[in-house]
């Protein structure tokens, strides 16, 4: 008998902890070329804004050692076209949908949440309070505790289903932000978005990303986000969605052991668009070999004495 892979975030049951990361699989519908998206725990769609956004000038992407920088600037078709054009496709594909939203003003988050609350196929929201690549708002919300709290509170009022807050890692102590989200009624936190990074083409002396700095993702950031997931798991009781640098199924298991309830696959999709299907096979095999009956037994199963951790002791 195969293991029970189900996990829960708020009232939402995911058939397994595999999710896609926002912005790394378009609106989710195009993944269907490479595997059946209904096998996923959840599809998280590209950050939507109230109005369509054309995004930043190129170059928007650059490769660095074991990672990449991006500065897409939230290019997206806007919430209305998403609802009319993309939702029917995703419904047909049998995806469980979590919609990621971003805005410059608190009111806009509320309008977005309000619009999406009316669409029952949208099973959850992921609030992007952490995009490092837009000139106003974006990361600012995510680095100020008060602003974060007030946005979560407002959105919580209008969105009754699962609400996840995606945090920026570019802060001194991410667990404080996770606690603030929990206090305002978030059902989960995503740890974390990309790290502010930069690279220069030394021949032209130009930055390799038009906005100079961009968000760094990929295997290079995995140990950093791992530490942040662990820190957060010691601070909150709500589920943690890990996001950062997953490239092989073992990374998935590592995040669960560090305390995550679900894990997003981002940059890996660019190289391996069928990664979720492969990971699911790898994890299923692993569970059966290790004779683990329920995947949630892995969550936070790291064998560790928190006393050993200088990083935590200081809390």
């Amino acid at each position, binding site marked *: 008998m195969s293991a029970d892979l189900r996990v829960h975030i708020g009232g939402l049951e995911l058939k397994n902890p595999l999710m896609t990361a926002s*912005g790394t699989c378009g609106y989710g519908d195009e993944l269907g070329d*490479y595997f059946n998206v209904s096998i996923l725990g959840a599809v998280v769609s590209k950050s939507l804004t109230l109005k369509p956004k054309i995004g930043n000038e190129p170059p928007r992407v650059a490769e660095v050692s074991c990672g990449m920088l991006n500065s897409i600037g939230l290019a997206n078709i806007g919430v209305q076209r998403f609802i009319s054009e993309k939702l029917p496709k995703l419904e047909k594909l049998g995806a469980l949908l979590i919609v990621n939203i971003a805005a410059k003003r608190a009111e806009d988050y509320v309008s977005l949440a309000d619009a999406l609350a009316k669409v029952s196929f949208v099973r959850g929201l992921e609030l992007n309070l952490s995009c490092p690549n837009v000139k106003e708002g974006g990361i600012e919300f995510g680095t100020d505790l008060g602003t974060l709290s007030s946005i979560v509170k407002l959105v919580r009022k209008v969105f009754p289903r699962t609400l996840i807050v995606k945090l920026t890692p570019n802060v001194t102590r991410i667990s404080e932000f996770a606690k603030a989200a929990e206090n305002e009624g978030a059902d989960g936190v995503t740890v974390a978005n990309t790290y502010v990074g930069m690279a220069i083409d030394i021949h032209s002396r*130009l930055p390799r990303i038009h906005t100079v700095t961009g968000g760094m993702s990929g295997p290079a950031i995995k140990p950093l986000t791992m530490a942040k997931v662990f820190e957060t798991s010691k601070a909150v009781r709500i589920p943690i969605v890990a996001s950062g640098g997953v490239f092989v199924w073992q990374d998935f298991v590592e995040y669960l052991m560090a305390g995550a309830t679900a894990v997003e696959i981002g940059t890996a999709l*660019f190289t391996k*668009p069928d990664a979720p299907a492969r990971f699911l096979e790898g994890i299923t095999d692993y569970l059966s070999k290790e004779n683990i009956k329920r995947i949630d037994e892995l969550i936070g199963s790291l064998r560790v004495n928190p006393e050993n951790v200088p990083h935590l002791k200081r809390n």
Partner: protein
Amino acid sequence: MPGNSVLETAITIDTLEVANRTFITRFRSPKIACMVTPGQFLMASFPETSDPLLPRAFSVSDAQEETMSLLYVAVGKGTGRIAKLKPGEPVVMNGPLGRGFPDMKGGTSVWVAVGGSGAALIPILDRAARKTGTEITFYYGARTGAQLVNLDGIKNINHATDDGSKGFHGNVVEMLKEEMKKGRPGQLFGCGPTPMLVAMKKGFESQIQTYLSVETPMACGMGFCQGCPVRKSGEGDYYLACKDGPVFSAADIEFEVGR
């Protein structure tokens, strides 16, 4: 219309160094080979390492039955690795991707300007032209003769070199302008470095149906990342090079001016 793209583990057949730092590698890749149309590309990746991390984009240079070839200039980590593949070694290919050149219709004439690694497109375009009975002529430029790839069996190639060491003395756009004094093609295709494409757009788009294959940095090649914008003419909006291109009608796009 292009079919769906697939992930295929291609098997290296052999690699030939065909010019200075320039290679042709052939692969057994039956699924992609049978679907690809001229101007489409694929993303090659190296699953056993995270450095290089992202897949690399290559136009398919030729495809016949189960065999497909890439023609590339070894400039960095990814191309360097491909050039070192031993016969029998696998590499993961995602393709065919994007929209290629418009289907050729017999009886028309097509001129193709190529520069640098744009030469990759000569074999596949030539094959398509022969199949449809289209009259095709290539104008192939490089800095110097040593950089020109000798493509066996393909006639109708006119060379241009900046230093005059082979063929026309000057760049390929200057050569086209000379040739245009004598006659004009039904369609003009271009593939090569961006400055060449900029000059082609400026020089010819108002006179001839011109299609350009653009190169931008790409992270995914599949429309997932929004990393490859190409500005739409007249609008503030963008196409995606990987989904809407890499081949565009010159009239539809604008090139970024220097930052």
